[in-house]
């Protein structure tokens, strides 16, 4: 059988952060900003969702942090290796429109989602402001790419090693005080999205966040990814992943993200042991 989902390029971007280009024509040809894919590495693998970060020809780009077992294992694949299954694009595309001035904010590995959204907003005729933030300068990704797309780009680092010393929310607050911003997108860890989207509430600016709950099928069949938005249960995989930030129950999202913490630990320990035994812990990327 033809092995479809070949890794075309594997690059390490920062500590534990990787950029992979995967040959998946049915995903690449239809992907829009805000959508994700689900991949399964091999027969015993888990299905995990990853945001589609870019598209080129028949290939899609994913950027991920190797924190769980599956992402760590994915990070051991090199160009030419294959992934068993890739399905997508999944989820609703971002609500792109001509709004005026839009702000696209990425935190940490969440920056991966921002170029496609910023690009489509720009193409729709918006003035696009990008804010990308990381813990420190060496963890900041896609700066050049975002600079090329956005009309303005702000950089923040938690430790002040680059750009504004502080958080994206600080920059956003400053901008909101200075001028009219019509729409805001925020993508990052749940806690960062919660805090940052809180900033836009008093200004009444419609703000989207891209939620990342645990998923299985990604097509609306299981309800693993259910989130409460505006008091209603929604399935992030088909009703989202983007939702009105001001309606999202972040506490519940974060609680549900922790369902399998202890099982994940078991997998990681087994994986680390396996890597040691096989002497495969030290792949070089780049």
């Amino acid at each position, binding site marked *: 059988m033809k092995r479809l989902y070949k890794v075309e390029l594997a690059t390490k971007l920062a500590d534990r952060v990787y950029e992979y280009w995967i040959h998946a024509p*049915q995903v690449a040809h239809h992907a829009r900003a805000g959508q994700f894919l689900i991949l399964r590495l091999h027969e015993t693998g888990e*299905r995990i969702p990853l945001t589609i970060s870019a598209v080129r020809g028949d290939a899609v780009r994913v950027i991920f942090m190797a924190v769980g077992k599956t992402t760590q294992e994915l990070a051991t694949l090199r160009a030419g290796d294959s992934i068993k299954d890739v399905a997508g*694009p999944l989820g609703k595309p971002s609500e792109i429109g001509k709004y005026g001035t839009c702000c696209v904010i990425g935190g940490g590995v969440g920056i991966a989602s921002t170029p496609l959204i910023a690009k489509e907003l720009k193409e729709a005729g918006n003035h696009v402001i990008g804010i990308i933030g990381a813990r420190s300068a060496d963890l900041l990704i896609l700066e050049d790419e975002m600079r090329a797309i956005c009309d303005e780009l702000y950089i923040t680092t938690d430790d002040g090693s680059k750009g504004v010393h502080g958080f994206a929310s600080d920059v956003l607050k400053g901008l909101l005080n200075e001028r009219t911003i019509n729409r805001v997108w925020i993508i990052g860890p749940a806690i960062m999205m919660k805090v940052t989207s809180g900033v836009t509430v008093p200004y009444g600016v419609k703000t989207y966040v891209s939620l990342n709950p645990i998923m299985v099928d990604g097509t*609306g*069949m299981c*309800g693993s990814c259910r989130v409460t938005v505006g008091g209603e249960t929604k399935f992030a995989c088909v009703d989202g992943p983007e939702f009105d930030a001001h309606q999202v129950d972040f506490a519940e999202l974060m*609680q549900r993200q922790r369902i399998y913490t202890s*099982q994940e630990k078991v997998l990681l320990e087994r994986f680390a042991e396996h890597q040691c035994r096989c002497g495969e812990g030290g792949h070089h990327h780049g």
Partner: protein
Amino acid sequence: MSGSLSTSAGAAKGATTMGDRPADVRVRDFKEVDTGLSADEAIAEAERCLQCKKPLCVKGCPVCIDIPAFIREVAEGDFPGAARTLKEQNMLPAICGRVCPQETQCEGACVLGIKETPIRIGALERFVADWERQNGAELPKTARPTGKRVAVVGSGPAGLTAAAELARAGHAVTIFESLHEAGGVLTYGIPAFRLPKDVVKAEINQVLALDVRLKKNYLVGRSVSVDELLGYDAVFLATGAGLPAFMGIPGENLNGVYSANEFLTRVNLMHADAFPEFDTPVLHGGRVAVIGGGNVAMDAARVARRMGAKVFLVYRRREEDMPARRVEVLHAKEEEIEFLTCANPTRILGEGCVSGLECVKMSLCDLDASGRPSPEPIPGSEFTLDVDMVIQAIGTSPNPLLVSLIPGLKRGRRGNVVVDENGRTSIPHVYAGGDIATGAATVIEAMGSAKRAAAAINAMLREE
């Protein structure tokens, strides 16, 4: 399901459990419960058939298998002939023999059932299909290629059946499946102890061997555009009723609350029971409440039991009102699932994780329109079940994703695709069958509707 009293009375006769592995043994694994008939037993059972001139059993079969003919062939020891007869009408006999509600269909109609027990048609069907699988399957003939292209969306029972029928008529058939495995509910929904996965794979491979193309990981509407789909000469929509319903009670999003779909998918499709050999986890409840009284509820309860839990089945009506196959109810009880009937959950308790299920007792006085008693909560009768996991198996509705993306496709109140008796939708060359058209029903009903739609598609493509 039909009237509760007649169903359970008929079922008590039909639901034989004689080939079953002992309950205390089988709850320790996921191997098949029913070991099936031996060749001698099959022949002896087939010899009981009266070979009625006007066989009622055939009328009871949604896919119109020539039941007396295949039973006669079994009685004569002509197992290949019996397999051929079955596959003329049904390409998934090993599956149907295991999961059809025979008690309300063929076996329910068998005249022997009036005075003694009906012929065990399902067990015979399964025997023949298993015999053929083990002794080399014969492929049915296909017509010469017509040059027509047909897209089938979904590879569950309806999609597979339509694909087989269309391929046999000579059309170039492509099945699109969104998951990484084919089979739909046969793969993700029905547990291996009821329907072994190698049986499902073998029958799917039989369909694919008719030169049917299968594209896995393709979610039509997302990975394939609607325009591309409608570019086929004919389209058969069989996307199923996969959208799980939740009760809408407080505490539903606590950790430890599952839809039956999620729980079963994690185990059946992703093999979470074999964690950490397989990477997908599932919570192991010590005490699990399963809500519902259908086949899916029984499946979820019995899976949880096999994973070591003490399981309670909470159902708002009486046991005899349960829509599950009688044999599933019997099996569940044998496996020490505790039935709490006439009880309805009102609230899931817990901080972060589930710590209990509050229920209210239901009074069952008046019969409602379906002939079942209409359950009413008894005020002040609330009680709390001490559980750490809750699985909701209260039904599913048609998958909205693709059908909501097709402009002009008429949909019914419950989100189902509206079709005529031949599976025609509001778009001329688009047909639909199975649960997406009927709402959640049985495997065999999905196959029956797929066969009618395939026949209509064949007729349409011949005329062109």
